[in-house]
């Protein structure tokens, strides 16, 4: 089982859109996939029309007793672990347990026989949870909007990885919401795009992605022939290759 975290400390960069579409592509390519909604907002669950069971809460999550709360999506090979509002304090809870950065790894270990791929949709923070996510993941994928601010938050992630003594090869960034008409976008891509940690695939700013909120489906389903669908598929292939090689 490969754990792929979609993470950025910055909000609104396209993490959830990425997690939703990549998990679909992964499942569609035949891999048994679980999308874990780690964000108490529950946006990933919203796109797949899945609500958490009422009985689901933080305690069970921390115990690693995830099985009963996983729900099937409408698509073959793809399940979802919904978020719960009690995840809001997951950080504090992790802290209570001794502040270890390896808790999450332990929690997910129980799923390794059932799934080939775990995709984590993470909330925008830098906290103990972020550290746990980085430790648990085989690959941390970061959407970067080609702006100075976004680049800074990626730099922050690299620093955190170094602090945790995690190999930088476990990090991968890609440009998200790219608008080629904007000079700043093209400049930043030209400057950083060739760096090793950047993937070749990009996701442009596309109406079909925005409209996911209306259709509540991955773009490969709501707009199967769209350039958005193609772009995510390509991104998935590149992410998977990195994940396997990392």
């Amino acid at each position: 089982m490969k754990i792929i975290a979609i993470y950025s400390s910055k909000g609104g960069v396209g993490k959830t859109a990425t997690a939703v579409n990549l998990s679909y592509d992964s499942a569609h390519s035949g891999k048994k996939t679980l999308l874990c909604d780690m964000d108490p907002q529950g946006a990933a669950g919203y796109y797949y029309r899945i609500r958490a069971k009422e009985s689901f809460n933080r305690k069970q999550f921390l115990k690693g007793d995830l099985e009963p709360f996983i729900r099937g999506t409408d698509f073959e090979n793809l399940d979802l672990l919904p978020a719960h509002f009690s995840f809001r304090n997951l950080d504090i809870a992790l802290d209570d347990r001794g502040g270890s950065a390896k808790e999450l790894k332990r929690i997910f270990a129980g799923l390794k026989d059932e799934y080939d791929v775990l995709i984590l949709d993470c909330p925008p923070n830098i906290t103990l949870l972020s550290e746990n996510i980085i430790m648990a993941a085989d690959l941390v994928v970061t959407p970067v909007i080609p702006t100075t601010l976004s680049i800074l938050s990626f730099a922050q992630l690299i620093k955190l990885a170094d602090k945790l003594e995690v190999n930088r090869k476990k990090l991968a960034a890609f440009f998200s919401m790219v608008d080629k008409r904007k000079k700043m976008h093209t400049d930043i891509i030209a400057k950083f795009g060739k760096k090793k940690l950047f993937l070749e695939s990009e996701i442009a700013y596309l109406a079909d992605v925005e409209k996911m909120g209306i259709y509540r489906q991955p773009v490969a389903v709501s707009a199967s022939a769209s350039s958005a669908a193609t772009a995510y598929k390509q991104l998935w292939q590149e992410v998977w290759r990195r994940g396997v090689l990392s």
Partner: protein
Amino acid sequence: MNENCLAYILPGPVELASLLSGLPEKYHIRECGISVDTICYLDTFDWRLNNKELLCFRIGKTSFVLTSFAGEFKLQEEGPTHEKPLPLHFSDGALGEKLMTVAGIRALLPRAEITRKSQCFQVMNRDQKIVFSGSLELNQLIPPDNEEGCQPVSLGGSLRLLGVRGYDKILEKVTEGLKLQGLEAGYSEERTLRLALTELGENSHHYSSQFSIILDPAESVILAAQKIFFQLLKGMERNVFGIIEDFDTEFLHDFRVALRRTRSLLGSIKKIVHPDDIVRFQQGLKDIGTFTGPVRDLDVYLLAKKDYQSMLPEGLQEGLTLFFQGLAKQRLKELQRLRKALQSRKFHSFMAQWQEYLENSILLSSLISGQKSCKEVASKSIRKRLRSILESGSQIGPQSPDTELHCLRIQAKKLRYLLEFYRSLFPETEMDILVKSLKKLQDNLGNFNDLSVQQKMLGEYQNALALKEQKNAIKVAAALGGLITHLYEEQIDVRNKFEQTFEQFTTVENSKLFTLLFK
């Protein structure tokens, strides 16, 4: 979605909405279209799949499914367009392989055909999320001869429900509702096949090419003979249609086995019925043996094609291919002759006479010894036959001529038939041991004979080629030469194993068994 699939038996047409009437208001059903498929259940003439609890069906023209009755495995693959395909027509996939091991060289014949109307549906909650899905299927038997005015017969159907992980409660509620409506889970494809076969007045145990008959030890031998002859006659008759239609090569083979058994039994009851009767029918049966022979001989070579290919180096393969092409052509010609003979007035009237004789005259023409108990006669015949095998066999040494082995082979065959005819009169386990051990001896003798027949046939073919001077004659002749050499060497091997095989047949244990059983 998970694999949590339930299948309910529907006795007849039902509305989906009424089946799911217990669904709470916040859910709704989305119907996703109706499809109609023709499904054809296939099995060999002797029900080989059914006997191994397997089921094969074709959906539409070329989509094939092979599954076990219990459904633990299910293979689905595209297959050949043949209406009655042979396992070798399938490509190399898992399905073809499985068919090959179970059905072997037998054709898959349509046993029942149905149309299946399926309606898929999804049940969704308020978020338009699928909470379970399913299909409603209705099966109708297609009358076999497509007679006009023949109404299709309903075979009931099924309701399949496929749960989604994490949404078990709603499915439980629905299944409770179905239980209240009196529906049973446990629908299977096999069930539909059985219903179809019942409608067609068939069942899967009608035919076995294995000979088996239960005799009463006290009944007279003439009665026993009558019963055995009858079963053999049915065995021949049943195969005629398949030979004429040329579904597969086993029809002719089984026909000829029944024929040989009949001739052998007839030859062994000389003191039991009037000799004139024996002579009369022996000739007719022999004629049938003669006109069915050529196609069978060719089948034997054509079936061994792979073996032959493996005997020759690359350079001789082309000649071999040409040789087989020639055989296939020849077979077609011989098959036409065989068809004519089997449809001739002469054949029909002979078979009718034989049947008439078995039904009405055989008991009347019984001599006094025909009234002896069949067990007594059986023991005596087996003992006699056995003694002569032991005698001739023990005299065969490394220098003995081939003809002695051939004689022994025929005697062993006759003994085998006797053991099979009268099997039910003796203890089963002991008979099994003897038959098994006799079979080993027969295999050795049979191989030896086959190898010499093959060499002879190939040699004759070679000579004929030389006379005709066809354009590829040299290539073919070279291939045949290669084969003959190979077969000759193999035959020497088999011959060298004879003494040892015969010794294993005449062990002290076997002798004890023989004396014990047939005293």
